[in-house]
């Protein structure tokens, strides 16, 4: 709340002042026990953003000395947290000063919850990284700075906390500053982004340099943490980028009106502007910018509007309306950084769903270029990415999409991956380059390589011989179809081709060379299912479909036909 003497208070002046305020979103990150919750609690308390009943409810509780308030209790919301004394999930906090409104994404510092750090950073204009003055720069601080840079958080504020426990000693602060600057230099080299960092020595517990200055540290004459947050330029680069608006919905209340509703991702749109609809590439001019509050002459990111065009274009949800003079790239292959967020590791044989702007497209991760070790920033080869690991991968989308590089445009360069089996969000991704068939290692006019076929189909060519009851064979074929495998089935009793076993084997081998998975099928009245691939044969007694199907998939993984996480080779 805004501090104000009621006697002088004019609500109309206040409302005028409020309408001029902008909004800054920042994320906080810290290691276990470096006092992040205390810092936020202090920030809320000292800006009078906490109500008295909330303070009363925590007085006398917590782990601080008698008479002191345990500020961490103001922000630790969930029961499990109160029991364990740790913050386990992203929490959002709100406060405002006379100059600005703030949204804090308060994210935990445990290694296993790195995904939450990325979540908080994804919408942040600034990141506050905490370092415990008594411990120096730990792996977690590096990790947080790295994720902030990767997600292109523009400003990094480094709060060197617990200065009270370090005797308010300037040399402690300067050493940490130097150590962390060298970390940031490494990060810039890796991510290709320059991060501007500001350092503030603070004590969240005692309140030094959080909102007010500190008498205990006369050697520091810079702004307090809050003063810094108030003075950072709010994110405006989004308006300087070329115009982009993903279509969320086509509004057609009657035959006279057809408008394309969406939130402007970047740039400015004006009546009369030439636009293109992507991926089709059809062009038109903007005739009206419609809102409930009346038509606009121009609109900027990130406003939500409805565009009416001067001619009929076949545009639907998921299409991108973009500036005709600076359109986005349309491609179905891209290089991207991934932050893996699921317990189940990345499986390159599986099809994921990629949600990007307002559409969802099936995708394969065709290769992993490297995994980045966050503690050293070293790149290492990897077969998979597991929970909280970060890597660079090649994506093969099953439909082309219109996108920009994340470094140039957060709104059209970001995506999430969804596992269609569990429906959970498994990764956050940032597109860094287009990988089209005409560039890279491939000869544009040369033969199609095995690797290219694999990347397209998500598996290798091969032959699977199946003998057993028709229902089980059908179930196996169906399951392979479901994971996106390209199969070709030859039945022993149905196909003339199969009359000549040698010819059948030859055709199967040729198809395998073309990347197809050929099923050589012999149906039997009843009994067990026998499956054979790459010389390995298994027999599964008639059981439930799931067990049989899973055994055959394992066989194909062992044979290397399906690219599994345990056995994948580049």
């Amino acid at each position, binding site marked *: 709340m805004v501090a104000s003497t009621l006697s002088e208070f004019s*609500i109309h002046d206040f409302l005028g002042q409020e309408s001029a305020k902008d909004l800054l979103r920042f994320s906080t990150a810290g290691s276990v026990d470096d006092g992040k919750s205390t810092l936020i609690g202090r920030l809320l308390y000292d800006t009078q953003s906490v109500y008295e009943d909330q303070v009363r409810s925590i007085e006398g509780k917590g782990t601080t000395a008698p008479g002191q308030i345990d500020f961490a209790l103001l922000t630790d919301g969930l029961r499990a947290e109160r029991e364990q004394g740790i913050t386990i999930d992203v929490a959002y906090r709100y406060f405002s000063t006379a100059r600005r409104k703030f949204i804090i994404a308060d994210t935990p510092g445990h290694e296993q919850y790195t995904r939450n750090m990325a979540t908080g950073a994804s919408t942040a204009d600034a990141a506050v990284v905490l370092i415990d003055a008594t411990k120096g720069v730990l792996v977690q601080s590096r990790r947080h700075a790295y994720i902030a840079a990767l997600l292109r958080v523009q400003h990094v504020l480094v709060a060197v906390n617990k200065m009270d426990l370090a005797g308010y000693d300037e040399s402690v602060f300067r050493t940490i500053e130097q150590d962390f600057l060298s970390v940031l230099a490494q990060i810039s080299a890796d991510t290709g982004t320059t991060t501007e960092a500001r350092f503030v020595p603070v004590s969240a517990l005692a309140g030094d340099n959080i909102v007010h200055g500190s008498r205990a540290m006369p050697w520091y004459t810079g702004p307090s943490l809050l003063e810094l947050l108030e003075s950072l330029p709010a994110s405006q680069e989004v308006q300087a980028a070329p115009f982009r608006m993903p279509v969320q919905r086509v509004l057609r209340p009657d035959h006279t009106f057809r408008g394309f*509703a969406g939130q402007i991702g970047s740039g400015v749109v004006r009546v009369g502007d030439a636009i293109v609809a992507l991926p089709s590439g059809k062009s038109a001019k903007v005739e009206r910018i419609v809102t409930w509050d009346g038509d606009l002459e121009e609109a900027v990111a990130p406003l939500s509007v409805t565009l009416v065009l001067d001619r009929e274009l076949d545009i639907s949800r998921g299409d991108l309306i973009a500036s005709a003079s600076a359109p986005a790239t349309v491609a179905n292959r891209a290089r991207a950084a991934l932050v893996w967020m699921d317990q189940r590791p990345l499986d390159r044989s599986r099809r994921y769903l990629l949600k990007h702007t307002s559409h969802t497209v099936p995708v394969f991760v065709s290769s992993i270029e490297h995994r980045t070790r966050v503690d050293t920033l070293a790149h290492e080869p990897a077969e998979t990415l597991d929970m909280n690991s970060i890597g660079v991968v090649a994506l093969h989308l099953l439909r082309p999409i219109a996108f920009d590089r994340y470094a140039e445009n957060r709104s059209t360069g970001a995506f999430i991956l969804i596992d269609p089996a569990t429906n959970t969000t498994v990764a956050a991704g940032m597109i860094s380059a287009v990988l089209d068939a005409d560039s890279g290692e491939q000869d544009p006019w040369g033969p199609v390589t095995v690797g290219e076929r694999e990347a397209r189909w998500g598996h290798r060519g091969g032959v699977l011989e199946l003998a057993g009851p028709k229902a089980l064979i059908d179930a196996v074929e169906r399951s392979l179809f479901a994971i996106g495998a390209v199969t070709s089935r030859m039945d022993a009793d149905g196909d003339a081709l199969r009359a000549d076993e040698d010819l059948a084997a030859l055709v199967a081998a040729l198809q395998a060379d073309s990347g197809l998975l050929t099923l050589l099928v012999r149906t039997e009245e009843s009994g067990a299912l026998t499956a054979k691939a790459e010389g390995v044969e298994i027999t599964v007694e008639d059981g439930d479909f799931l067990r049989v199907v899973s055994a055959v998939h394992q066989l194909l993984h062992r044979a290397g036909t399906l690219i599994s996480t345990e056995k994948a080779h580049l």
Partner: protein
Amino acid sequence: MPVVTQESGLNTPPANLVPARITHLRLLEAESIHILREVASEFERPVMLYSIGKDSSVMLRLAQKAFFPGPIPFPLLHVDTGFKFHEMIAFRDAMARSVGAKLLVWRNEPAIAAGTNPIVLDTRRCCGLLKTQALLDALRHYKFDAAFGGARRDEEKSRAKERVYSFRDHAGQWDPKNQRPELWNLYNAHVHPGESIRVFPLSNWTEMDVWQYIHAENIPVVDLYFAKERPMYVRGDALLPIEQDFVARPGEKPQMVKSRLRSLGCSPCTGAIRSDAETIPDIIAELISFRSSERANRAIDHDQEGSMEIKKREGYF
């Protein structure tokens, strides 16, 4: 003439160099409209939970804006406990008519007929039957797969960690330890049959933002928010509105008190506050001077440590 060319050049500077300054309310509005449009486009059967309060009023206006010039493409659902103030019910029906939205009302009739009230039961069990159970029954009955709610993260500590898309299992339950990560404005709408998502388009709004928006947009709200002389049972600091007879203790007499409601709930569990705030700017001025959070006079949040979190796990909004 060269001079003219130069002048026209000066008159049309690249507008990108002067970024438009967008106020926080416009930013919040744009974000909420994006969420409303995403849900309406990605789910089969969305519904908007309409609770008649100030947050619902803002959410309803945002829905009008999101689909303009078209109609709101989903129905409104009010879970009526039978204990809502009569002004609320009249306001609800008038609002639904004026925005042209379809209004569904759901009551847990067996529990209401059985005389369920927060005095006989405790507030937790009463809410469980009349609100949570009724809500889950209604969602199941109509097979809604997404339900908008007007909850804000600044309301209560357990809400601070709620996602915009809050995943619920078959029983409508929330698992705070197993929430889907939510990045950028990319929401994951994938659910299995029977599972659902609660959606909170006002997640990032504060109580102050809501009032400022109501003021700026002239959004109608229930009269109970404005101070008037009203009959109240006075118990210490607490003012209990007279709406149900069973609230009174033996011998207790109502007094006329200039008062208003800060949040609208069921009449037996919603305390009023002494106030002179007769207009929206008055309410905003009062809010600035307030030293207690808006749910402090809601009995339901205090009956147990972490009670809101427990109710949410069970399926409460």
